[in-house]
């Protein structure tokens, strides 16, 4: 129990950190500068296809060390919305 509690603390990422991670990921995929991305725009408007969505949720899940169902991207379709949901639901 002790070790899992310690793990939870070390893996804590707040909404801001998650937003930064997602923006950097998308910036790499669409070859733009992360700073140019509107955090309230939909993932679809960035031209992300379903393979990219699946890749992003997979990598994000590895980084956060938790399972992230790719369908949450459809329920929370912006950088800010997804980060807020993930920060709140951990």
């Amino acid at each position, binding site marked *: 129990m002790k070790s899992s509690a310690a793990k939870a603390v070390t893996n804590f990422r707040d909404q801001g950190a998650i937003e930064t991670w997602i923006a950097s990921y998308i910036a790499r995929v669409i070859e733009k500068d992360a700073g140019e991305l509107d955090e309230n725009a939909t993932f679809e408007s960035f031209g992300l*296809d*379903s*393979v990219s*969505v*699946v*890749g992003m*949720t*997979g990598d994000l899940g590895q980084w956060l060390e938790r*399972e992230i*169902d*790719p*369908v949450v991207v*459809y329920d929370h379709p912006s950088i800010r919305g997804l980060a807020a949901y993930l920060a709140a639901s951990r």
Partner: protein
Amino acid sequence: MTDLMVQPSPRTAEFLRAPTPTAYKGASGAAIRSHYDVPSEFYALWLDRNMMYSCAMWEKPGTLEDAQVRKIDYHIEQSQAAGKARVLDIGCGWGGTLRRLSDVAGIGSAVGLTLSPAQAAWIAKDPRSNVDVRVEGWADHEPTGPYGAIISIGALEHFARPELSDDDMVQAYREFFLKCSRWLEPGGRLSLQTMAYGTATRDKINPFILEHIFPESDLPTLSAIVRAFNGVFEIERLRNDRMDYAETYRQYGRRLRARRGEAVDLVGDDVVRRFETYCGLFILGFHTGAMDLLRLTLRKL
């Protein structure tokens, strides 16, 4: 490393050359092998104990294995296979349905068809005396007698190719239904399970799936299936259980993640990634309704 990409098969080349193609007979052995002949040990890492590689039934909470057995029993019930002298399983995979038929359904004998020698070899490791597995397609099958029931789970997806016109797809499916009808005893039933296009159309499906996961295969639409069996079978029951498949792929993805290291040792990182992407895409596809999961109970007319 096993390559999921496929070489053009002689049958495909022959089909493309034919000036007036006869009805398409389904994906070539090479195409089926490219997907299913990744070593069976790889699938064994993340499928359930019965090696069922098709949509389970999640009517209540439980394990993947529970939900897969519930699915098999559903098809045994719908096809009324219990107690029948002869039962056919078209696209028998690693034999989960055949073993269940033999072990609990009180059948005389069962015949299973697969295009994958690896699957047939796997089944032979845990044989049943009244089960006969053949590495052949439905188009080449010559039964030695009539069947009392036919089950086909996750095979129809491989019967049509992306290049076929809608009418040619219907014709390919119709050939299949005509054969099934001819092989069945009067009033016999075919219990069929297949993925289908939902709100998506061919051009909207991510090319990754058709190129890497199911080469030479295309999904049916419900309307194409209905046109194809019209006048050959009557429909007794139709279910769209797409959420069952989203959950099944969630389980697949989770189980593959849990055994990832062993999976990479067996087939390499590229193949594991391909399967991870495919599981994620299918979770999305079934969750959003882009794809459906159809279960049809058909009675011979």
